[in-house]
């Protein structure tokens, strides 16, 4: 499940959008004990100026991203805008039965987008 982006297209400046991954949807609900799913989220939005410059508390700006946004505003055809990508991620843990009926807890790094940034 994902939040619909208002008005189609990238919609607004670069930020994290809600995306929920449901284990039931992929048919794993019989052997995944917990969680039922997780908020993976995703990044979308414009990276033109001023969005490329961080708001208060936002992710650190890459100078190169600002340079590209400046170049784009001066000469749109030269190089594209920076991309809106994950800037900070966090882990999840999954508890499940494996093929040998063991109860397994696996920990996966970098599974959830907490913050997006222009790169």
């Amino acid at each position: 499940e994902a939040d619909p982006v208002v008005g189609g297209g990238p919609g607004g400046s670069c930020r994290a959008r809600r995306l929920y991954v449901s284990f039931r949807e992929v048919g794993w609900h019989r052997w995944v004990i917990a969680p039922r799913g997780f908020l993976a989220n995703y990044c979308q939005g414009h990276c033109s100026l001023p969005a490329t410059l961080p708001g208060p508390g936002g992710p650190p700006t890459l100078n190169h991203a600002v340079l590209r946004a400046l170049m784009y505003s001066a000469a749109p055809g030269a190089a594209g805008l920076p991309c809106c990508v994950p800037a900070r991620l966090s882990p999840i843990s999954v508890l499940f039965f494996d093929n040998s009926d063991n109860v397994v807890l696996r920990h996966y790094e970098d599974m959830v987008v907490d913050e997006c940034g222009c790169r």
Partner: protein
Amino acid sequence: ACAPAAPGPAAALLQALGLCDAPQGAPKPRPVPPVMWRLFRRRDPQEARVSPGRTPPGATLRRPCHVEELGVAGNIVRHVPDRGTRAGIPESAAAGQCSRWTVVFDLSAVEPTEQPSRARLELRFAAEEAAMGIEGDWELSLAQAAEGTGVGPVLLRQAVVSLGTPVRAELLGAAWSHNTSVPRSLHLVLALRHRATSACVHLAEASLLLVTLDPRLCHPLARLRR
């Protein structure tokens, strides 16, 4: 080590999660051990997350690739039930001694790339009220099972103070050495004796809590952060 993924997003996601294939059919219903619930609840920061971008305080302080609660490196924890019959070994009973038990752990699900960091045997004993009440002076001995009903060399001897709580023993370094990969299965012979009396108990449950580190799921960057 997995066969090429079958087409489709579910198979691709499975492989991304380092799982070769989804368990076939519904697993045998069995209660989830409390220790696994506890570990899951303490590790999964999502329980409290409500909107993108917010993380509960403390969640990001957790060292990646490390199981804080058990104090070892690792990103996979398995609770492996005993597959043995836990029936006593007849000849020991015939000789008037307390029973010895064979326990079997199927570790074939552990991949060769996984590095073990903890292998905690947990035993629950049950007996008549009188035997359970005898404190101290129990001794647990653990040996490799040999072919047939033979018993190999003793791997571990450990004093047991009380039978009221689960008896735990660390097998890593005893049943197999630290720097070798996990064996595909573990056959052990256990005996519990009381030094001062001839009291006997019987083994109600045996399980193994195995912690391993799969370096493929442990990003260098995550390690650097640590």
